[in-house]
């Protein structure tokens, strides 16, 4: 008995990419007792997301995944600040550089073109007001419709996602966790945005509900043709929904490839470990666990940040930062052992 993967429309890689992130650096800077400390949560990350593509970001907790996407959508607050690099979106032929926009311009593209399903997003619904108020507060101003049309659009959208429009009259606590999560996804997509960022949208849910929510995201992607930036530490979820996956380790991108390539032919030792350690039903071979502990971003190891735990570590790994090298079209890796220690 094998279930089918959640299929979706293939990405459009010929036209201009929807998102280009170039050498992005964002640090948390704290000043305490006259000492400045930088926590390099996003360190020199470049990536592009094509129109209609689901780009997965994987990595363990505190590897900087959430900081990366917060920086990409421009939702950062001190002490997190951008140190270098650019984030450029392309919506309908128009270019928007997130860190060149004025606050009101950013406000105008948010929700309309760019929406963000936050981690633990079930908690964005106001617990003491009916769900319709959350829809009104979030979406009404961005849609430019009169009230009657607005509510009709919202109801049509809920029906399209197989949700009963009756949920609008409910309070959040009256819904189950899965219903709440689906309602917040409906809320994030009601303005048919071109780019959707989802941070761990299924982590708190059990397996059956998780599958429903992923199927719903797939349907949205198919109907709207949106691009997704999909963040989760669960590699099985990436195998199911993502077109391409980037692996983040301690604030840096270490490998990026199309999903089948990444799961069958990963080259970076960390990615290989992540893929090999996944347990599967029907397979009882012993899974090794990685020695050592995840590095602290306040005091990361020198050179390649993975070298203290790496089975292939060489002398150069502790001295220099491995550059991102193209192994094949759409397959990049940052590892001296793979690309040869010539830098």
């Amino acid at each position, binding site marked *: *008995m*094998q*279930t089918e*993967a*959640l299929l979706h429309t293939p990405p459009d890689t010929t036209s201009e990419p929807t998102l280009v992130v170039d050498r992005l650096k964002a640090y948390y800077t704290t000043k305490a007792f006259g000492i400045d400390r930088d926590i390099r949560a996003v360190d020199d990350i470049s990536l592009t997301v094509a129109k209609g593509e689901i780009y997965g970001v994987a990595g*363990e*907790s505190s590897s900087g995944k959430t900081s990366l996407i917060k920086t990409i959508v421009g939702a950062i607050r001190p002490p997190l600040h951008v140190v270098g690099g650019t984030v450029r979106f392309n919506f309908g032929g128009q270019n928007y550089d997130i860190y060149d926009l004025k606050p009101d311009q950013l406000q105008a593209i948010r929700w309309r073109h760019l929406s963000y399903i936050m981690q633990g997003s079930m908690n964005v619904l106001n617990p003491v007001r009916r769900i319709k108020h959350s829809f009104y507060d979030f979406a009404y101003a961005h849609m430019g419709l009169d009230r009657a049309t607005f509510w009709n659009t919202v109801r049509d959208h809920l029906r399209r996602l197989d949700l009963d429009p009756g949920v609008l009259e409910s309070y959040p606590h009256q819904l*189950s*966790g899965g219903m709440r999560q689906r309602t917040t996804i409906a809320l994030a997509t009601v303005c048919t945005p071109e780019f959707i960022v989802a941070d761990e949208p299924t982590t708190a*849910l*059990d*397996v*059956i*509900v*998780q*599958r429903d929510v*992923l199927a719903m995201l797939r349907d949205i992607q198919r109907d709207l043709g949106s691009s997704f930036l999909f963040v989760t*530490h*669960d*590699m*099985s*979820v*990436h*195998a*199911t929904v993502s077109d391409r996956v980037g692996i983040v380790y301690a604030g840096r991108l270490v490998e990026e490839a199309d*999903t*089948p390539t*990444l*799961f*069958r032919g990963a080259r970076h030792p*960390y990615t290989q*470990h*992540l*893929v090999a*350690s*996944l*347990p*599967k*039903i*029907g397979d*009882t071979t*012993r*899974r*090794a*666990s*990685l020695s050592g*502990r*995840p590095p602290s971003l306040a005091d990361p190891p020198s050179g390649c940040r993975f070298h203290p735990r790496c089975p292939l570590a060489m002398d150069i790994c502790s001295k220099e930062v491995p550059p991102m090298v193209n192994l094949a079209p759409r397959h990049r890796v940052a590892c001296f052992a793979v690309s040869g220690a010539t830098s």
Partner: protein
Amino acid sequence: MSLLLDIAQVGKTFTQGGLLSRRTVEAVKDISLQIEAEKPEILSVVGESGSGKSTLAAMVLGQQLPTRGLVLFDGVDVASIRSSAARRAFMAKVQPVLQNPFEAFNPLKRVDRYLFATAANFMMAKSKPTRQEIEARVDRALVEVGLTLAEVRGRFPHELSGGQLQRTAIARALIPDPRLLVADEPVSMVDASLRMSIVNLFGSLRDRLGLSIIYITHDLATAYYISDRIIIMKKGEVVERGSARDVLDNPQHPYSIALKKAVLTPDFA
């Protein structure tokens, strides 16, 4: 054949609301379950949220008393435990491991404090232990999980990784030499690269120390990987039970089939 744990037709009903709007919720309905004393095993309890897994665990731990039926541990009815000495003797045999290690430890207190307090509590029963005896006991438990007292001494929870902290929580549970661990979603908050180290640790505790473990999870893949027996729960009832491999290789009940179908695997890539 003696039984370590004998759960006989246990049910738990919660009542909500006042006199006029009384509603009852049957969290657990007539569950029977045995673990043999001579045959240590890992028993997985699998089911969706709200299926009564955690209520069952709370009853095994004596935190909730069953509305109907009996929970016998080593032949003693858990509901009949009254005196603090008897309760301490029971708690020494059955220990919990919680879901989120970051919530299990107070962030403002050093982690070793919990270990020393647990050791002091359970060793008090014999005679007042000395500092050396306590430290030796704590160190022995930490070595069982692949840590040492030197690594943990004086550390705050934020100074340890999630995996190390969860191992410390397991070491704390091992201090009184328990016979049974009840682990409620112990790996759901641990990073992918460390998850398997915790699951492998459970296997080695079973094999080396002869410890039985009730492993509550909704992750079918790790349940298949590590457990000997499995029960699948839905709405407070056991819908399927048996050897983990048999049940998950070839599920019979429609709910078990749906559950297995919903599991995402890396093969989709």
